[in-house]
């Protein structure tokens, strides 16, 4: 069965973005960038929601660095508001409920999938128990003042089995887990 990877970059305090900071918070380094360029998930279909699509396709239209590589990837955009045709190359619009669509693709499809950004999409996929791997790359910064979009808001409780940890450039920490959603209310959960 195809796998689904939820893939985030965050600050140490769990924010995916911040006002006034550059991309990667200005802390990317050669080891991290080399890993990004050689990921085994390069052939996965990229899943995203409408907001991330608007943001990233806008960057691509302006020719920002790094967007060339993304153009070639197969992308699925979940949205009930965007309309065909999508202008960014290799993007397919799906207006069906994302959880149903991804469940169907895992059951009947042949290609593995990973997410890009898309906090609410990831939250839905995680809560539905569809996620096989949860990977977060933690950048060495705390953005208590300027952080926005904390990736973990409104999450369920989830147990994590660590399958990988790695440090890039002496400062960037990759943590990778198999998630198990704990779906009964904590008080009713057998201990």
């Amino acid at each position, binding site marked *: 069965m195809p796998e689904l990877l939820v893939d985030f970059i965050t600050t*140490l*305090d*769990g924010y995916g973005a*911040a006002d006034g900071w550059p991309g990667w918070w200005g802390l990317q380094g050669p080891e991290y960038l080399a890993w990004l360029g050689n990921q085994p998930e390069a052939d996965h279909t990229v899943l995203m929601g409408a907001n991330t699509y608007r943001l990233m396709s806008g960057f691509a239209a302006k020719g920002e660095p790094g967007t060339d590589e993304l153009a070639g990837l197969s992308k699925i955009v979940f949205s009930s508001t965007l309309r065909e045709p999508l202008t960014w190359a290799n993007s397919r619009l799906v207006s069906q409920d994302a959880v149903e669509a991804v469940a169907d693709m895992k059951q009947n499809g042949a290609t593995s999938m990973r997410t890009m950004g898309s906090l609410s999409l990831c939250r839905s996929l995680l809560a539905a128990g569809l996620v096989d791997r949860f990977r*977060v790359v*933690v950048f*060495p*910064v*705390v*953005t*208590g*003042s*300027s952080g926005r979009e*904390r990736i*973990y*808001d*409104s*999450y*369920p*409780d*989830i*147990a*994590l*089995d*660590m399958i990988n*940890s790695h*440090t890039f450039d*002496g*400062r960037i*920490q990759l*943590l990778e*887990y198999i*998630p198990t959603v704990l779906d009964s*209310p*904590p*008080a009713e*959960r057998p*201990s």
Partner: protein
Amino acid sequence: MTATYTWDIFSSIDGFGSHNGDWGGYWGKQGPELLDHRLDLYDVEQRMIFGANTFRSMLDILGSRTEGTDVDGWNTRMRAMPTTVISSTLTGPFEWPDATVVSGDGVDIVARLKGESEVPLRSHGSLSLNWALMAAGLVDRVQLTLFPVITGQTGLEPIFEGAADFDLDLIENRTLDGHTQELIYRPTVH
């Protein structure tokens, strides 16, 4: 010579320091490597620094217990260390061998202790105190232990909720028991 100040803090991956669920202590994820490592950390003489709320819960959990009960070894060692509690309300005596209450501004008190103390300073928990100390540039090391859980429903006390923006130098990191990540950073106000 200035004493080193370490803020020692436990957290879920999503940044909560505590919970109201049935996870238990360490979110149920403690193992022999973690407990041995904790014991080693408290093998050297240090002065503990607590805020009032953290010290109250320490007293509840550890106050009347003594060697030989079911308290983990590092907690027994921590309790035996000289302790400064920063509080304007607490008054002793406490069931804690060597605790002194100091009232006043935490930043002033810790700045003075860093100048005077002959042993390193270490705080555990004590969120609002440590946010203020970090903002004042007094925290030399943030020692974060990340337990492998997400507590979106049951998480309490976000550990960086009241923190400013900080740049972090990663000094040390290790994986314990194959699933718990310890990360030690030197924070600098951004």
